[in-house]
């Protein structure tokens, strides 16, 4: 474990003031680290609704239509107001027809509260004449229709809508009258009059909410991916890691977990590789051994320990157990298979490197083990949060410190989590980084620093309460955060400068 001070000497990216200034002052003087990169904002559900409502109101006034029509039009035009107004002013009838809005005589038939409303006028239930449903071909007096007057029995209408909702999700708001060629969209009134299962109706209602489609159709807005969280995030297109006020961290571009500094494509490739190669690796490790001479992977397919390498240029005969040459196993020769020879163990790793496929696998494994190591450590850091609460309480009891005085520990823990979180993905990033070159050296240097700082912080926080010193901890976690920012900025600069060399690197470095 290195000290923070020793690494400062060659740390070009971190501010030089850190070497001289008092760590206590620093946290008050410097801007919060995240602030610099935080270009996103969190909107709660009511703010989203207000934004959507504002748009709808403006369209309603501009086109002199009802709010319902304005909402449908905006949804249909995916909130592109310019396109909507332009086309509407050009040919209003066409736009209304395409959006499925009824014009002309209202022939709607809707059952509600024991009565049936025909074109808006209520009459007693059962007073309708029998008609044949065009779906089930049965004749009944229990049917509904949209403004277009195309009648379908309520059973079929319900099943039809249930299918639309299940199959098309939120797109069920665009469901039209079942009559072919009729483009009228189903109304909320009709959906609510039918006996749909509660969960299906809930999906329909959610789909109809203007803020739902407002956010879904806006490339700069995205719902938080946490289950049950109704917040949305606003960020510029192409932005990666965001954090909702509920604590959920995710990638704004791919909706997967936040994976800075590696890109969405790299993460996807990595995940596929982990699925495939970890399996391959496990299988190779448990079923094969490298030929001691040429390092080709060899599978043992019989009970005999006398192996002959099938590599035509090798043909080495060896013992499966000790990997020694077979000739010394023959009767009369000196048999050493049962003896432990530490010298041999030293030779083996060298021999393995000869085989390119094994080398590639080992290269992958190098990054994979580090990735999973940080990934697993993260779980402990989550547990550590709970423990930290305990520690803070303990501190309060022990000395003269108040709870407020001790909250820096929480911040430290949070910083530790953030660093570990990013560290795991730095290994994915490094895996796909082209071999050699200045950037790689620079990146790895930053990565080392971040890793050292993170481990130091981790160690510090695990100490007993009596051994934790505020100044040390604050300095340590501020440094860790600075190093994290430095690393992310370094990657961001490369990403904006030459985005193309990522793919080239991936090709050359991953598979043999």
């Amino acid at each position, binding site marked *: 474990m290195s000290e923070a001070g020793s690494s400062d000497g060659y740390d070009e990216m971190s501010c030089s003031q850190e070497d001289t200034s008092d760590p206590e002052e620093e946290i008050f003087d410097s801007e919060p680290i995240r602030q610099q990169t935080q270009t996103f904002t969190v909107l709660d559900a009511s703010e989203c609704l207000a934004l959507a409502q504002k748009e709808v109101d403006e369209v309603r006034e501009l086109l002199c239509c009802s709010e319902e029509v304005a909402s449908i039009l905006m949804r249909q035009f995916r909130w592109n107001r310019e396109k909507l107004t332009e086309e509407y002013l050009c040919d209003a009838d066409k736009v209304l027809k395409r959006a499925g809005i009824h014009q002309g005589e209202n022939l709607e038939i809707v059952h509600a509260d024991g009565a049936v409303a025909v074109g808006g006028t209520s009459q007693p239930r059962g007073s309708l004449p029998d008609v044949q449903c065009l*779906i*089930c*071909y049965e004749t009944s007096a229990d049917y509904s229709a949209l403004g277009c007057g195309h009648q379908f029995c309520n059973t079929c209408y319900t099943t*039809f809508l249930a*299918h639309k909702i299940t199959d098309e999700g939120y797109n069920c708001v665009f469901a039209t009258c*079942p009559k*072919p060629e009729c483009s009228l969209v189903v109304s909320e009134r009709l959906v609510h009059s039918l006996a749909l299962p509660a969960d299906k109706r809930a999906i329909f209602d959610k789909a109809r909410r203007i803020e739902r489609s407002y956010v879904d159709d806006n490339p700069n807005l995205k719902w938080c991916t946490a289950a049950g969280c109704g917040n949305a995030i606003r960020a510029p297109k192409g932005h990666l890691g965001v954090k909702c006020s509920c604590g959920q961290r995710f990638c704004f571009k791919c909706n997967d977990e936040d994976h800075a500094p590696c890109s969405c494509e790299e993460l996807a490739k990595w995940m596929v590789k982990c699925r495939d190669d970890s399996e391959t690796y496990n299988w190779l490790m448990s079923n094969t051994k490298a030929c001691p001479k040429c390092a080709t992977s060899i599978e043992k397919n019989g009970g005999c320990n006398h192996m002959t390498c099938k590599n035509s240029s090798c043909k080495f005969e060896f013992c499966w157990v000790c990997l020694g040459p077979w000739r010394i196993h023959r009767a009369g020769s000196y048999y050493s298979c049962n003896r432990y020879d530490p010298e041999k163990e030293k030779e083996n790793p060298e021999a393995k490197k000869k085989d390119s496929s094994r080398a590639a696998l080992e290269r992958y494994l190098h990054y994979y083990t580090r990735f999973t190591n940080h990934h697993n450590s993260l779980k402990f850091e989550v547990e550590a949060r709970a423990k930290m609460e305990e520690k803070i309480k303990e501190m309060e009891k022990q000395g003269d410190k108040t709870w407020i005085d001790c909250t820096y520990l929480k911040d430290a823990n949070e910083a530790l989590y953030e660093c570990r979180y990013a560290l795991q993905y730095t290994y994915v990033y490094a895996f796909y980084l082209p071999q050699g070159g200045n950037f790689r050296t620079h990146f790895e240097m930053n990565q080392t620093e971040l890793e050292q700082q993170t481990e130091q912080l981790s160690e510090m926080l695990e100490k007993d309460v009596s051994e934790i010193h505020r100044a040390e901890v604050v300095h340590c976690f501020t440094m860790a955060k600075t190093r994290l920012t430095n690393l992310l900025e370094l990657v961001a600069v490369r990403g904006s400068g030459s985005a193309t060399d990522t793919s080239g690197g991936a090709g050359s470095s991953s598979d043999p």
Partner: protein
Amino acid sequence: MSDVNRIKKELKECSKDALMEKEVVWASLVSEANLLEWIGKLKGPVGTPYEGGVFIVDISLPSDYPFVPPKMKFRTRVWHPNVSSQSGAICLDILKNEWSPALTIRTALISLQALLSAPEPDDPQDAEVAKQYKDQQQAFQQKAKFWTETYAVESKCEADTIAEMVEMGFPEEQCRNALKAAAGNKEAAVAALIGDI
């Protein structure tokens, strides 16, 4: 649950159509025991390279029919941009997202026939055919015509024989299969059909 009553009614409508000479599409069950497996047939539209051919379509009704579209596939090989020349798979909007439960097997077959006269090369099922349709219209016409003559035209005498067998009271599909199995020998085919009963 598929709507048994509806399927039976569709079947009834289709059997009425079958009696009409001028009808261009027909549909029937593969076997009386299964209401979900159908076989459809359509005449190649006049004025197209498919003219003169009779195209057989395998139809399978999903359990949620008619709320879910029927699955249709050409059994007869067709050279057409929207039909796979290998598998017979069809690319037609009403068999996918544009399906409506108010449509029927018969209307779907009519749409399919319309597709034969108006290919949509911009939404192709078979890229190779679509490319030829766009770049070498004449070669396309020739190949489509050749395929029609090779795979979709029943020889006159075969058709007559089947008609005679149908008059004897056998289902048409079984007659065709029996005739094929008996290598065109009418007596052997009839004997086989009687043997089956």
